[in-house]
């Protein structure tokens, strides 16, 4: 990683701008989509409008950040979606009546995430298979806990998600805070370089005296914690638990990470890009309903938007190489 950084500084201005442009593309797509929506419906350009447009992007964003941490290690997590569903069930069932039990389950599930990370690392198993298996386990446990959708979010949680802070709408505020924290921890701090190194070049990190095993377990645990936050925010929005509420989050998360400039090779991720990617993906569906695309076309067209943005990114990447 350090080598490439130095090399990059010696490159010309155009080449140095390329990664910024790459990262900028989803941001440009986001602004363009917003412009179209506001053009169709100027009333949406308000505090209330922003809140409604991005409300449901908040849990997607946290799930995407969880996915980002795993992708940073060069792995992939196919269980995020059902894990978020599981958390909504736990939250809707226990957080109000017996908060201690709920918190204990959260802590335990974060430990399970860490254990999965260890298992994948120590036995050198393919993460795609292990997490696919975990996705069925989370779903199964969620269905045992809550066979039919129901339960109720504690009022403080739904109150928080409905909170209207001054100046900035809550979803925007949360996105900025999450992106900034992520940026400083992952992209800026020296500790972040070690974390990224654990995915990009684990040997170098090991030689520098770090325990890759510990780092990997810790990152998986952090991914689990972000998944818990995603589940909590989602429960606050839907006010109930449902095991099948969020299967789409798994792949939306992967999409957001890659859109935001991440790569499957490990070590290359961008928290700011991921947050923007998640917002872009969440808005793509909205754009189509504002454009009144016929319902049968919407599902395919959503994929089309994703494809366009991604193609643009790859074109830019090819120019630079």
């Amino acid at each position: 990683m350090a080598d490439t950084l130095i090399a990059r500084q010696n490159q010309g201005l155009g080449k140095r701008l390329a990664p910024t442009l790459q990262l900028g593309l989803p941001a440009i797509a986001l602004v363009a989509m917003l412009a179209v929506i506001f053009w169709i419906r100027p009333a949406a350009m308000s505090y209330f409008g922003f809140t409604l447009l991005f409300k449901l992007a908040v849990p997607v964003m946290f799930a995407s950040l969880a996915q980002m941490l795993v992708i940073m290690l060069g792995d992939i997590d196919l269980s995020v979606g059902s894990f978020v569903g599981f958390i909504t069930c736990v939250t809707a069932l226990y957080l109000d009546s017996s908060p201690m039990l709920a918190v204990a389950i959260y802590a335990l599930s974060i430990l399970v995430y860490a254990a999965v990370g260890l298992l994948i690392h120590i036995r050198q198993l393919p993460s795609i298979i292990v997490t696919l298996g975990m996705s069925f386990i989370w779903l199964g446990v969620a269905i045992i806990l809550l066979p039919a959708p129901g339960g109720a979010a504690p009022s403080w949680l739904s109150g928080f998600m409905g909170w209207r802070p001054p100046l900035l709408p809550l979803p925007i505020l949360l996105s900025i805070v999450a992106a900034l924290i992520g940026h400083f921890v992952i992209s800026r701090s020296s500790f972040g370089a070690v974390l990224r190194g654990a995915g990009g070049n684990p040997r170098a990190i090991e030689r520098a005296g770090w325990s890759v095993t510990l780092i990997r377990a810790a990152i998986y645990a952090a991914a689990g914690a972000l998944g818990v936050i995603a589940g909590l925010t989602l429960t606050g929005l839907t006010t109930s638990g449902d095991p099948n509420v969020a299967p789409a989050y798994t792949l939306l998360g992967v999409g957001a990470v890659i859109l935001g400039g991440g790569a499957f090779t490990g070590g290359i991720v961008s928290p700011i890009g991921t947050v923007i990617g998640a917002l872009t993906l969440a808005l793509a569906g909205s754009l189509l309903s504002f454009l009144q695309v016929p319902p049968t076309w919407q599902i395919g067209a959503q994929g089309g938007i994703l494809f366009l943005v991604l193609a643009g990114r790859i074109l830019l990447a090819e120019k630079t190489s």
Partner: protein
Amino acid sequence: MRSRAFKTLTLSLMAGVMLASAAAAQEGVATGDTSSKKIAFSNSYAGNSFRQVMIKSFESMGAKAKADKMIGDTAVVSSNNSVTEQASQIQNLILQGYDAIIVLAGSDTALNGAIKDACDAGIVVVAFASGVTEPCAYVVDYNLDSYAKAELDYISSKLGDKPANILEIRGMAGDGFDKRLNEGVKKAFAAHPNYKKVGEVYGQWTATVAQKEVSGVLPSLPQVDGVLTQGGDGYGAAQAFKAAGRKLPIIIMGNRQDELALWKQEHDANGYETFSLGATPSVSQVAFWVAQQILAGKKVPKFVEVPLLQIQQSDLDAWLKTVPDGGVVNADYPQDLVAKIIDANVKKEPLPMVPAPK
């Protein structure tokens, strides 16, 4: 400034007068002006034939209402069985300025947040064919207790109060619809103490499965006088009785084309008589008109029970002609019929029946 204040005052006065005149129209069709109102349909899933017919019914009725200046515009959005996507679509519909949203919910509870947002924004929300629990939404649905009661009442109208043996064909184990209908059957049985349930099988609303399951239990059963069904299983049950060489009992049919065709064939051959009932995909039209009527100022109860489409012997030929091969009976719900349904709900009277086609 003054002229503006004056304008607001007149406007609000006008609105007040309009509201008052609309509220006066308690019974029948409310005629408040809805020519500029927009109604959207948020659908959780569009991937089977029942839902396709449901969307088409809504669109055709919406287009007709638009031509008649009853409504400004309509729209349909479908999410691919993803509850979060449906929630965000509802949020979008709020922003797009729809006056009413009818919802076929993918989850009874997970849309509560989005539905509450819509209500708070002053939008009329009508949920149909699903048990949405958010109290601000109007719910349009069938009553499955009436479904079971209509089945047993027909059997008793034919057999009287003599002791009789009844076979119940259920849907699928663990399914919500099946559970609620079965509870209705239990209640209906309480009113007919002479009837004895001699067997129960799961037919999965499918002719072939029902035939296999009924064939499996028939040898162990005494004479069966009546068969309760859930729709889609009547044809298979009849085949099973025929294959076993038994006399056809009264099998309640479920408005499927194959069931009606078999019923007609048996009636022509040996005077067999039964009765058919079921849900219709066009319940989306009921939800549409309920939303329109609320916008027009009609007082509507929070729960509107929709009558099941019932077919008597005398109407069999007329209905059978309208059903495509392999399809389900469907019928348009015009505005005046829906107004009558609402009134019957308010007055707790028997619901008006869907008239047979001419």
